[in-house]
């Protein structure tokens, strides 16, 4: 310990120094971009971030040692990764609002595309909104009861190998590509039973996608119901099915509703299965049981494929409508979870 050099504590890099390094990195990059042919905001950010990472690591290695320097390097990298992930989200939302605002008018919500060509102005998505509402309603009506029953089986009744198998394949089913669900209904319902394209067929295909989501979310919620509630009910001589219907399900209801809303939001945005089963139509078809129908995502896909500015504008407005519906559903679900979470804590 006679030599002075290695002390137990080493210096730390003050926050001010980090800020100074960041400012210098930005300044150097701006100068670099002003003096050389380099251009573009993404490039500038990338170069500035690289210079900052290198400079900070070098400085920290000097003052704090290599281990701390590595720690700082990773911290900066992880934070940058998070910021990077936010870029596409805000870009998509911002650009959709910007492009979709042009045709976000009364006509869009009251007219269909009947006898509107790709180059014609006007026209709207009323027929698509009708289609989306009907298809999603049919899907929800079919998936929610069945999904809830499956969740009840897994949590309340299921034991042994069969329950484990069902549980496993519910998870596997969540990974089935949406286009495969569409192909299934196409080959079974439309080609096999010769039923023709319809909104109901789209509902069948969307159910294949929605069912596992409902099962998974309801299952999680049923598991959260305390066993003491079940046991209290059994002790009063109430049979199991009544306990499930009157005690377990009502207790888990807020969470189940949240799961249903998220699942509705998810299937509302599905395009591929609707394309294969409802096919799409330009005019209003109020009946989901006969004839082709459109839906909002399908309208986006088909109008975007026309490559005319008027059609593309309609596509953007349909996309904006779709995003609004999906985001509102997500936010409502989020608010509902927060409220029910508070309720659960209070009851414990």
């Amino acid at each position, binding site marked *: 310990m006679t030599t002075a050099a290695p002390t137990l504590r080493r210096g730390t890099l003050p926050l001010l120094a980090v800020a100074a390094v960041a400012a210098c990195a930005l300044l150097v990059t701006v100068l670099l971009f002003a003096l050389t042919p380099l251009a573009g905001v993404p490039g500038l950010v990338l170069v500035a971030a690289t210079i900052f990472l290198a400079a900070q690591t070098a400085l920290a290695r000097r003052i704090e040692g290599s*281990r*701390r320097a590595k*720690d700082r390097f*990773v*911290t900066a990298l992880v934070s940058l*990764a*998070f910021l990077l*992930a936010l870029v596409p*989200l805000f*870009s*998509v939302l911002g*650009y*959709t609002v910007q492009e979709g605002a042009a045709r976000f008018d009364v006509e869009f919500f009251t007219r269909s595309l009947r006898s509107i060509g790709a180059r014609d102005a006007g026209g709207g998505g009323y027929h698509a909104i009708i289609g989306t509402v009907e298809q999603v309603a049919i899907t929800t009506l079919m998936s929610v009861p069945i999904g809830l*029953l*499956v969740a*009840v*089986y*897994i949590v309340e*009744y299921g*034991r042994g190998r069969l329950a484990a198998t*069902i549980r496993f*394949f519910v*998870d*596997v*089913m969540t*990974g*089935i*590509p*949406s*286009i*495969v669900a569409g*192909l299934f209904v196409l*080959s079974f319902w439309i*080609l*096999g039973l010769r039923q023709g394209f319809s909104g109901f067929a789209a509902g069948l295909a969307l159910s*294949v996608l929605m*069912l596992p989501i409902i099962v998974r979310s309801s299952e999680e919620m*049923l598991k959260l119901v305390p*066993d003491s509630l*079940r*046991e209290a009910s059994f*002790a009063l*001589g*109430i*049979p*199991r*099915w*009544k306990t499930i219907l009157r005690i377990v399900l009502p207790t888990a209801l807020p969470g189940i509703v949240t799961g249903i809303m998220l699942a509705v*939001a998810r299937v509302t*945005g*599905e395009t*591929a299965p609707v*394309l294969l089963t409802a096919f799409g139509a330009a005019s209003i078809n109020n009946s989901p049981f006969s004839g082709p129908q459109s839906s909002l995502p399908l309208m*986006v*896909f088909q109008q*975007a494929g026309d490559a005319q500015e008027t059609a593309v504008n309609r596509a953007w407005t349909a*996309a904006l409508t779709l995003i609004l519906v*999906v*985001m509102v559903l*997500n936010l409502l679900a989020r608010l509902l979870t927060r409220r029910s979470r508070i309720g659960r804590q209070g009851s414990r």
Partner: protein
Amino acid sequence: MPDLTAPRADAAAGADTASAAYGGGGAPLLPGSSAGDLPRTASASGQRRGDRVFRSLSLGAGLLLLGVIVAIGVFLVYRALPALRDNTGSFLTDVGWDPNATPPAFGIVALAFGTVLSSVLALAMAFPVAMGVALFISHYAPRRFAGPLGYVVDLLAAVPSVVYGLWGIFFLNDRIKGLSAFLHDHLGFVPLFRADGIYGRSILLASVVLAIMILPIIASLSREVFLQVPAANQEAALALGATRWEMIRMAVLPFGKPGVIGATMLGLGRALGETIAVALVLSPAFLVSFHVLEPGKGNTIAANIALQFGEATATGRGALIASGLVLFAITLVVNVIARAVIYRRRDFAGGSA
């Protein structure tokens, strides 16, 4: 440099005791196992019948779900067979795709290749960022903001794929063109970046869109796993003087590895099956080509179905269904492996991923 082997051993021991505590405490809490026999003592025959009906209903729903998965496979095979019989080419080894011609000749090679190439590229781009996002939310962000920040990232998954496609063609395409030119000019010696000077609507664009779409899936599942790392393991590492990164490397990453692998494979499955976004952004061609910067150099199974379905003849539809069957098989295998990995970890840790 501290001795890194000692805390690692400690961390493993900690995980073992934690799993024992989880398993021991968790099992009796499982509904059904503890209260199964209670109601029978008081049940009249009517109540028993109600129970039987309800039980069979719920079991029937579960079996229906299994039946749907089997039916998907059966009906796809049944509808694909006639087209495969009429096929004058070889389905498994042909590159071309002409099912609507007479005689029809089509093969899956170009489509399967494009599907795998775009998905693997997407995974390569999304994985590092997703790890960063997951670690940021689980271990770097202030506790108060961790929840809301995670929610914001999850919103990425809420955006419908058709909107990503639209954004991909009209916004991202121009940016990727610039990036493609840059990659070609400066890294042209890499085989992947060869091009003739025409860029845009390429496999690269499709992969970037796919990467954005699978990022939230990988990130949120990995985040869940990272949050389940026992605090004792992490505190032990920190108490030995580890920095935050060393703690993450010694305690968090080894514990989370199976979960991260599972999450990544789920992301891969999603990328393989994504249809509409790819169908919108890609300029398709039936080729086996590594030229990811150029338009018209590839196609994917799912996108091809969406693009060709409208004009397909009966044989054409059968051919598309046959290609869908291949996609179903690939994603099924990927998903089963992913779930098996996650399940094994769940048994080990006792948590729910």
